């Protein structure tokens, strides 16, 4: 959907990322997903009388890592505040969050548009807070059931400036953040389990207007698709209303993916005086330079710079480099193979092609690959050393994948898959073929180069794929040359 003519759109996103910790932000209960209702909510998560929060160190480590990843400022002193409102999934009647002194301030991330255009999106802040429980509306008629397993799950709320000018840009930004979070092991990125949720602040204004329009906040979008759809429908709604001469009021909305529309929320966020004040049960958190430096020293190379390096160091295309650098495990795998073989392009072709294809087919992560980088490197080495053909290599790869062998070189030897490079063995074959197909031989000599494939194919067929195609090619040319 394109932006209506005569209008421009301003979008800021608030991304809630669940941090991939073992235990909750303020208690020692498990963050495991999908357990029986209320089986993961301890007395602290339930807000029982007399209980007190504590602070999980891992949430700070992950938040700092993200902050460094977006080149933000890490506040050496941060503090928790209480945000007060009543809702059944909020056990204490307040959420512990960071209002005035968040852990990360500022930062930016680069996004790539569909047309490969690049843009920098500014990040306002990222702060730590606790997730709420879940309301279950369809279990018992006229009642809502409350499951507090999710209550107290650590969240990093990442707030962007209203730099995003379309739904496409918003999605590209959300995907860039998703990639960074998973790359840095800050969040598992599992959208289906709600590990990443978006609130979109959307406003429109005439193209020549200076000031931002009246915004609506669309809450709780849990997929890239819904994010895109919700923004597009909200933009259209606002433009339609303004075109009719109506005045918009700032509101909070929900997206209905079945009806493809946003509607104003009736409850929860309507009373907006949250009465933030410093959480008296927790002290301010001071993190030392040593803590930050330790994280800095252990930061992996980020996808952007890594992609640039893959292009210059290994001669990869932009697309290959971005794909391989976009996932930390995949990038590491590729780089190991490239180091072993000294052949970056063919390492990229194999990892991106055969290996990734097989992984995707079986829904496996790179860390679960049955073929190791060493094996992959050895396999490519056999091709580069002209011991096997590319075609044979696919057979060897299949054997590695199936676990029939762990040593490509031994397997090739045992199965007799070495290329036939002995000119003496191939020459008679070529001579026979040229004799059997004089018309084609003549045409080839006359410059009809695609017939080369015909003859090479015949030789490969006759040798059971063991001949070296380049060698066969060269020998045919020699035979035909005057």
């Amino acid at each position, binding site marked *: 959907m394109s932006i209506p003519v005569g209008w421009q759109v301003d979008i800021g996103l608030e991304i809630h990322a669940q941090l991939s910790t073992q235990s909750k932000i303020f208690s020692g209960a498990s963050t495991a997903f999908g357990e029986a209702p209320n089986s993961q909510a301890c*007395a602290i998560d*339930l*807000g*029982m*009388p*007399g*209980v*007190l*929060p*504590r*602070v999980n160190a891992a949430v700070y480590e992950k938040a700092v890592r993200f902050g460094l990843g977006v080149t933000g400022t890490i506040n050496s002193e941060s503090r928790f505040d*209480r945000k*007060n409102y*009543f809702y*059944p999934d909020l*056990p*204490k*009647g*307040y959420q512990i969050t960071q209002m005035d002194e968040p852990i990360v301030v500022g930062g930016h991330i680069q996004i790539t548009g569909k047309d490969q255009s690049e843009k920098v999106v500014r990040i306002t802040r990222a702060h730590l807070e606790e997730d709420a429980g879940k309301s279950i509306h369809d279990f018992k008629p006229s009642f*809502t059931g*409350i499951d507090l397993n999710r209550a107290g799950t650590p969240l990093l709320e990442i707030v962007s400036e209203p730099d995003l000018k379309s739904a496409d840009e918003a999605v590209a930004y959300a995907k860039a953040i998703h990639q960074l979070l998973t790359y840095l092991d800050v969040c598992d990125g599992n959208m289906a389990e709600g590990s990443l949720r978006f609130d979109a602040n959307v406003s429109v204004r005439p193209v020549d207007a200076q000031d931002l329009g009246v915004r609506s906040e669309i809450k709780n979008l849990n997929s890239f698709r819904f994010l895109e759809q919700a923004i597009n429908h909200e933009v259209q709604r606002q433009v339609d209303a303004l075109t009719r001469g109506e005045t918009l009021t700032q509101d909070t909305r929900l997206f209905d993916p079945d009806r493809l529309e946003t509607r104003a929320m009736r*409850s929860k966020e309507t009373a907006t*005086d949250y*009465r*933030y*004040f410093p959480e*008296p*049960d*927790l*002290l301010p958190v001071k993190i030392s330079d040593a803590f930050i430096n330790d994280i800095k020293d252990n930061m992996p190379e980020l996808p952007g710079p890594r992609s640039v390096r893959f292009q210059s160091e290994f001669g990869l295309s932009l697309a290959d480099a971005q794909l391989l650098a976009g996932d930390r495990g995949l990038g590491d795998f590729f780089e190991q193979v490239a180091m072993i073989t000294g052949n970056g392009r063919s390492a990229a072709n194999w990892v991106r092609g055969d290996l990734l294809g097989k992984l995707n087919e079986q829904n496996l992560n790179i860390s679960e690959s049955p073929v190791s980088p060493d094996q992959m490197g050895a396999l490519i080495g056999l091709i580069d050393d002209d011991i096997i053909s590319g075609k044979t290599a696919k057979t060897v790869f299949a054997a590695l994948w199936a676990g029939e062998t762990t040593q490509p070189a031994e397997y090739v030897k045992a199965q007799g898959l070495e290329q036939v490079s002995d000119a003496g063995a191939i020459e008679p074959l070529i001579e026979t073929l040229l004799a059997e197909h004089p018309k084609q031989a003549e045409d080839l000599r006359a410059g009809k180069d695609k017939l080369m494939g015909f003859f090479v194919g015949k030789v490969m067929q006759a040798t059971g794929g063991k001949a070296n195609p380049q060698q066969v090619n060269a020998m045919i040319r020699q035979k035909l040359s005057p």
Partner: protein
Amino acid sequence: MNLRSATIAELRAFLDRGDISAVELTDYYLDRIDRFDKSLNTYITRTADTARASAIAADKVIAQGKATSLTGIPIAEKDLFCIEGTRTTAGSKMLANFKAPYTATVSTKLANAGAITLGKTNMDEFAMGSSNENSYFGPVRNPWDLNRVPGGSSGGSAAAVAAGLCAASTGTDTGGSIRQPAALCGLTGLKPTYGRISRWGMIAFASSLDQAGPMTRSAEDAAIMLEHMAGHDPQDSTALAEPVPAYTSALNNDIKGLRIGVCQAFFDTDLDAEVAAKTREALRVLESLGAKLIDIALPHMAYSLGAYYVIAPAECSANLARFDGIRYGYRCENPEDLQDLYTRSRGEGFGQEVKKRILVGTFALSAGYYDAFYGRAQRVRRLIKQDFVEAFNQVDVIVGPTTPTPAFGIGAKAESGVDMYLQDIFTISASLAGVPAMSIPAGLVADLPIGLQLIGNYLDEATLLNLAHQFQQATDWHTLIAPEAP
């Protein structure tokens, strides 16, 4: 062997010598509770069965010669401390049937030391009050005069010790809730440094002010109790990690040359003339023991009441939001919808004073008023703290009255809210600063006990207890027996 007047230290000797068993001692107190508590109403819940079982265990430990200073000593716990298996009400209809599945760190520590819990004591609802009249379980009466209040909010804990219905008790102090009832009942009551004792399992009123402490018959007993109650707790981020000194071994230090600060502001306003006279008399006793009296100023003390009545209600407005009738606590009949569930459960479950403070706190934090109220109160709080920091550069302890008057009549102040708040006018500043403070008996005014307040530097409970003990070696006010519970 006089059990009625016996301190923990004396009972220890009786138990260790075998003059009495822990079971017999427990039965002695349970019997007194039966006799006197109908009129005094100090206990909300009695735990006679578990007390006897603990006493049997304690006798075995004593026989093995492994007793701690508290093994077999029967105590009472303010009903703000959660104890697994026993109901914890906070003096409120909201929690009239609440049983916590966990135990407060303080209660665990005392139980581990061998103390026997006789029951849970009455209190002002959610620790909000200075007379113990704001209890869903009815007012507590002062064993010195049944028509008078025992003070609050730890009124049940105070009256129970004063009436000999337990050897000692736990209290909590947010603005004076240990010291004021200790003064009005003729006891020794200590509010330690904020953070000295874990708040885990203690139902919160105002988190940055709440502090647990002992209520006892002597300073020595307070030292014994504090040694067991204090210490680091990973479950309370605000509990201090500093090691707990052996308070009992510092009790007999010489106080010669100890610098005692006297602040004229304590004597200027609202102080009953006879209380003032008794306070000055106590200061002369301290002087006679070798302490030096030095005039000091606490320039912002006059603002402590105002700051307190913003900060405490603000924190309480959030702390009490969890009582929503969903996971525990009172729930109204047949709620029409969610909003009805919230407002009626809270409206019916909370008493008037609690609702009033929640509304004040909500207002103090609300948009447009935060800076003028909460923000300003926090800045004034810093000034009050600075006053103490500066004062303790010159003196070791600050001494003054605990309350403006002795115990007042039941019903005398119930209707006029703010008049009641003035009860804490001398105690609140130490709470805001977080410094330790205690009240010790300083004589009788119109046959009613009054208290002397000792305020110490951060984490210097040892000097307070030392000074209090030396005062009690020179006086016998703390040994007087409340006449309505002979």
